[in-house]
């Protein structure tokens, strides 16, 4: 099953809608709650990142019985230093993100923590594509 969403630009009020929809679908399909939570958190953090840094983008979720694949693609500025971005506490998020309870430099570290595989393709000035895999708990 394939789900596709457009993540709106600069609209914090709607950030998280796609993740909530994916969570509801996985629940309906009867996946284990721990798997659902890991997918929901990883995708939610990814969505927030796209709104904060990249004026939104596209999310594609492929659901298989044994794993969930998520791809988040944006046309944002790209990530200059992935190692730095993966460091807990390092953040380039603006003040507006902090007012919403984000921008603490936990986004990518959180995504890594909750996924089984994370690949980041990024090009400065072109955009970033996050590929995430969550294996379904047996």
């Amino acid at each position, binding site marked *: 099953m394939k789900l596709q969403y457009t993540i709106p630009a600069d609209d914090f009020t709607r950030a*998280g809608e796609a993740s*909530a929809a994916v*969570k509801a679908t996985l629940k309906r399909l009867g996946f284990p709650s721990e798997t659902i939570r890991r997918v929901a*958190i990883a995708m939610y953090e990814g969505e927030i990142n796209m709104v904060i840094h990249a004026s939104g983008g596209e999310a594609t979720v492929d659901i298989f019985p044994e794993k969930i694949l998520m791809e988040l693609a944006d046309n944002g500025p790209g990530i200059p230093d992935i190692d730095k971005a993966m460091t807990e506490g390092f953040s380039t998020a603006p003040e507006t993100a902090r007012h919403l*309870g984000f921008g603490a430099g936990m986004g990518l570290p*959180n995504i890594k923590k909750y996924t089984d595989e994370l690949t980041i393709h990024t090009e400065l000035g072109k955009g970033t594509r996050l590929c995430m895999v969550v294996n379904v708990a047996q």
Partner: protein
Amino acid sequence: MTIADIKRILNAEVLCGEQHLEKEVHNACGSDMMSDVLAFVKDQSVLLTGLVNLQVVRTAEMMDMLCIVFVRGKKPTAEIIALAEEFGIVLLQSPLRLFSACGLLYQNGLNG
């Protein structure tokens, strides 16, 4: 304890989810930083926070929480209340500060 106990202990007002007050809760967390809630929380069913926006409700929903307590008398907008209602999350509003609210619940048997 139940969510109704939390309401009583924190002298809180119910903003939505009145029908879920008898639900049992065992763990809670207090934070204004939603990223930290997503990073460190595991199976806590109550979120105490002084942050008031839609992302608080979305974060709580991602973590399968049952109840959000807005401390320091913070009042959420109608939009926030409507989203919590849609997710079946109880919203409480307490005049207490975050530290005091957490302390009282801990003292009464709620774990971290």
